[in-house]
């Protein structure tokens, strides 16, 4: 079969090769998965390459995702949400990421970091303003990192100075997903640098506030549909009522919320990996060399087997971490393991997919190269994998 024909088949084919998973989802989760998968197939997959090429935010699609209730998955019904669980977020994010990695990022971070935190610790008024009044495609942000404070969170230098019945925020936050298009952000700033992490406080900041400016949109290797930039705060007045949780309690809030975020990013990694694996399998059945489809060769079979096992294992870890998130006990180790496994699976699988596609994996005619670029971020954000390993190592040592 000619390369042209293979291209046509693969780009038009709607493969459903999700037959491996051993874990059974509940009927509601399965229905949600179906909705998300159908949506991703119809609305995201056909435009993903274009979004990537043009570095474009999928505004219309995000609105539709909001209409499906997917921008308020775990928000209480009182504030227009569905009151669903972390597993629902994971399932939804995976399917969306399978259609478009960048859109998966947007939805994951909005649900697992912004919504999750506000819904968890916000006061009724805060939830009313920062969740309830979010409609349609409104998005929230989570501004924690800074140019000089990534893994070293407590090195942050954005300050919050008390001033009557408000705080004045000054500083720069970096890598803020959704900032170019968002409505509000949870911004972490320190009320007292000498207190180190005990000075860090979380603030709810509408992005339309005076003094808030956006930096230039980051030019990223992948997930280019997801808009990120610096958030610059210059004498931004934030009412005391907008302190989320306790003053000085921000560090703990961020760390605990990251347990949920890691499930979300793990799920995104799964979606990207799944898309890449399906592509590799489909291609290997069509592409012939020496008169045979390449899937008949051991070299390809062994590679596909490695890819499939890592994906399945990562999925089980992500789903387990999701289930544990909603239980009272801490599950930092499990969330870290899930994020580590899923992100490494994603980079491994997308790498392998390019290898199977050969030359075609290297050009933009096929999505393999885009999956490869999209996957790379998952080993970095929501806590670099190096830190994840430290967390896991420490937990394992402590347990035994």
């Amino acid at each position: 079969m000619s390369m042209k024909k293979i291209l046509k088949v693969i780009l038009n084919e709607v493969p459903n090769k999700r037959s491996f998973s051993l874990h059974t989802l509940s009927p509601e989760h399965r229905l949600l998965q179906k909705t998300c998968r159908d949506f991703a197939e119809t609305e995201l997959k056909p435009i993903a390459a274009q979004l990537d090429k043009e570095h474009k935010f999928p505004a219309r699609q995000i609105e539709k995702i909001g209409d499906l209730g997917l921008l308020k998955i775990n928000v209480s019904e009182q504030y227009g949400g569905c009151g669903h669980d972390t597993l629902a977020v994971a399932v939804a994010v995976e399917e969306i990421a399978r259609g478009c990695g960048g859109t998966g990022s947007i939805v994951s971070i909005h649900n697992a970091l912004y919504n999750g935190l506000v819904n968890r610790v916000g006061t009724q008024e805060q939830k009313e303003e920062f969740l309830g009044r979010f409609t349609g495609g409104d998005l929230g942000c989570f501004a924690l990192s800074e140019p000089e404070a990534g893994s070293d969170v407590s090195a942050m230098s954005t300050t919050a100075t008390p001033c009557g019945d408000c705080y004045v925020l000054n500083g720069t936050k970096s890598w803020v997903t959704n900032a170019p298009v968002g409505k509000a952000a949870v911004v972490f700033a320190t009320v007292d640098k000498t207190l180190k992490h005990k000075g860090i406080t979380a603030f709810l900041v509408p992005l339309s506030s005076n003094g808030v400016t956006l930096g230039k949109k980051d030019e990223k290797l992948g997930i280019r549909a997801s808009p990120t930039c610096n958030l610059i705060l210059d004498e931004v007045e934030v009412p005391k009522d907008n302190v989320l949780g306790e003053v000085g309690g921000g560090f703990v809030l961020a760390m605990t919320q990251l347990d949920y975020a890691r499930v979300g990013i793990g799920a995104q990694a799964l979606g990207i990996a799944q898309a890449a694996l399906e592509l590799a399998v489909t291609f290997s059945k069509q592409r012939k060399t020496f008169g045979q489809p390449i899937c008949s060769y051991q070299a390809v079979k062994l590679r596909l087997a490695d890819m499939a096992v890592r994906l399945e294992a990562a999925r089980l870890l992500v789903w387990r971490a999701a289930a544990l998130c909603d239980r009272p006990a801490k599950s930092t180790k499990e969330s870290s393991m899930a994020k580590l496994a899923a992100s490494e699976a994603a980079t491994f699988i997308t790498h392998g997919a390019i290898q199977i596609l050969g030359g075609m994996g290297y050009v933009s005619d096929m999505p393999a190269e885009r999956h490869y670029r999209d996957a790379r971020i998952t080993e970095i954000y929501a806590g670099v994998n190096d830190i994840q390993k430290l967390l896991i190592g420490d937990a394992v040592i402590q347990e035994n």
Partner: protein
Amino acid sequence: MARVLVGVKRVIDYAVKIRVKPDKSGVVTDGVKHSMNPFDEIAIEEAVRLKEKKLASEIIAVSCGPTQSQEVIRTALAMGADKGIHVEVSGKDYETLQPIHVSKILAKIAQNEKVDMVIVGKQAIDDDSNQTAQMTAAVLDWPQATFASKVEKGDKEITVTREVDGGLETIKCKLPVVISADLRLNEPRYATLPNIMKAKKKPIAKVTPKDLGVDVSPRITVVSVEDPPVREPGVILPDVDALVAKLKEGGHV
């Protein structure tokens, strides 16, 4: 406002590559992805739109089949149906269940539930029978509006545009009526997450054909199921004479 019954069938998903069982007794269904028949999705969507326009009061989704058929009923509930009825038919009985049986089942339920409209997909994508709507109407002695591409409901009647071979035909039917949904009737909605959650609380009643007084004994025997012949490559011919000669050679004329 009308009470509406919608028939929904669980079929192998349209995107799945069908494989014939080695013993030629049927197609492989184990572990294969199933979903609601696409034309039935259109039927449910139409019913939900009627309800949104306050022309329908209650939508009852009915499916005949094994336990797994409850999944498509749940999808129907998540799309907006109010309650479901699962008519349990399993194993050997299900393999030989035909429109003649289903139509009697739907007719009985329609009478029990005092519905004014029965809407089903025009055909199922597994058997392509295109008989259930017509037979149900006959059993009930109701008018039928099949291949509907547009439905407008008046007080005691409906105006339906039908897609027929010659083009479009518009007819009026008095209620109660049976409608079969064609492709262009509407575009089914996604089941939104809030509706999926609401659907959890909606009831699904379980009955058997026996409860409804319907005999589902087989009226057919499946002799064999085979793949269609492999498509032969084409040949380019120089002129019409060569074409005619080739056709005669192949016994086609």
